[in-house]
C-alpha cells in the first residue's frame, strides 16, 4: 500500500514536470496507486487488466464491485484519463500548464475521496447515493415493518 502522503506529494510534483506528457502519465499512475490502496484494503489483488486502454479504469471498476457507492469516483477517473489524452494529443497547446494543473486537481480529488472512503468503517457510510440499492441482504437488521 502506498502512503497517501507519498501519493499527494507525487501528484504535486507531477504538475512541475517540464515534460507535460510525462507529468500526465505520472498522474494516471498515481491514480492507479490510489485505487490499488482501496482494492488492497478490501483484501483483493489489484487487477493488472486494462479497460478502454487504461488500468486506472479497470481498477475503478474492480473497486466498485460489491460497493456501488465507489462509482462516485467513476467520472473522476474518466476525467483524469481525458486530461491525460488531451495533453498527449496536443502537447504544444498554449493551455498545457493549465491542463496539467487541472489534471492534478482531478487526481487530488480522487485521492481525497478514496481517503475518505477508507475511513468509512470508523465513521459510517461515506456516500449517500447508492449502496443500499444494491444490497440484496443488508448487513443491518431490517426492522419489522408491519
Amino acid at each position: 500500500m502506498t502512503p497517501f502522503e507519498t501519493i499527494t506529494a507525487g501528484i504535486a510534483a507531477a504538475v512541475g514536470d517540464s515534460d507535460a506528457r510525462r507529468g500526465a502519465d505520472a498522474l494516471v499512475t498515481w491514480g492507479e496507486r490510489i485505487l490499488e490502496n482501496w482494492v488492497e484494503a478490501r483484501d483483493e489483488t489489484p487487477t493488472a487488466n486494462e479497460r478502454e486502454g487504461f488500468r486506472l479504469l479497470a481498477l475503478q471498476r474492480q473497486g466498485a464491485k460489491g460497493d456501488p457507492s465507489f462509482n462516485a469516483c467513476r467520472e473522476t477517473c474518466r476525467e483524469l484519463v481525458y486530461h491525460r489524452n488531451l495533453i498527449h494529443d496536443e502537447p504544444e497547446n498554449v493551455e498545457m500548464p493549465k491542463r496539467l494543473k487541472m489534471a492534478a486537481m482531478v487526481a487530488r480529488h480522487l485521492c481525497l475521496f478514496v481517503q475518505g472512503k477508507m475511513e468509512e468503517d470508523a465513521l459510517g457510510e461515506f456516500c449517500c447515493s447508492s449502496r443500499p440499492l444494491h444490497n440484496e441482504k443488508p448487513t443491518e437488521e431490517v426492522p419489522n415493518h408491519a
Partner: protein
Amino acid sequence: MSEQKDLKRVAYYPGCALEGTGHAYDRSTRAVGKELGLDLVEVENWNCCGAMEVKNIDPKLQTYLSSRVMSIASEDMGFDTVMAPCNGCYHNLKKAEYDLTNDPENVAVTERLSEKAGHPTYKPGSVETIHALDWLKRAIGEEGLKERITHSLKGLKIANYYGCMYTRPRHIFPEKDQGPGSESTLQPHFMDDLLEAAGAEIVDYPLKTACCGGAHTLSDSDTSTKLVLNLLEAADECDADIIATECPTCHSGLEMHQIRAETKLGKKTNAKIVYFTQLIGLALGMNARTVGIHENVSDSINFFREKGLA
C-alpha cells in the same frame, strides 16, 4: 422519456431541504416557473423522501416514503409528473420507482405500509419523476429561454456543478444516455445548455459530478472541507466567477466549507455559489431579492450589481 408530454403544469415536490437551508432554491424555482408561465402544484401533505438517514438504516422504508409522495401526486391529485428540484429527493423517488418495478420484497413492504397508512399503494409507472433541470429543459428549452431573456448573463463565467446523485446509479435513470437530446450520466449538460442559452460562458469544469463530501459534513468535516476546497480551487483555476448548483445539499456544503476552508486552512477561494434557478431568474430580469440572492451564504449581491444584474 416522453418528449411530447406537456410539462406546463406539474406536481411539485420541494422536499425538506427546500424549506430550510435550500429555501433560496425553492423561492427561485417557484419564481422562475411563474415568470415562464409554468404551473407548479405542490404535492399535498408530502413527507420526507427518506433521504440519507432513513435510507441508510432501512432502505425499504425509504422506498415506501418516496412511494407515498408519488401515490398522492398520481392517485389523489391526478398528475403524471412530479418535479423534484433536490438531488436527494429526485434520486430517492427514482430509486423507489426502480425498487417497486424490480424488487418484490420492496413491493410487499410498500403495500403493507400503504395499507396501514390508509392510502393507495403507488403503482410503478403512474408518474414520471423529473428534476428541475429536466423541467426547464423540456418545458421551455434553450430556444424558448433565449426568447425570454432580458438581462443576458454575458460576461459571467460559470462552472456547473451537478453533484453525485443527479446521475448515479445509472440504472435508476433509464431516460438518460438515450442519445441526442437526453441527459448524459457521464457528462451531464442540461445546466450547461440552459445557462449558455441565458448568455453565460460555461467553463470546462472537470469536477462537475465529483463528490462534495456532503454526507460526511457532520461526522468528518475536515474531509468535506478538503473535498469542497478542491472543487472551489478547480473552479478558480478555470477562471469561473460562479459555481452554479442544482442541489441544496451540495450548495450548502460548498458555501459552508468555502468559509471553513478560509478560516481553518487559510485558503481563500473566489467563486460565488449560486443556484442555477437564481441565475435564470436574474437573466429573466427578476429582482435579486425575488430569486433569494440575499438568502445565500455566499455573498454575491455586489458581484451581480457590478454586472448589472441586480
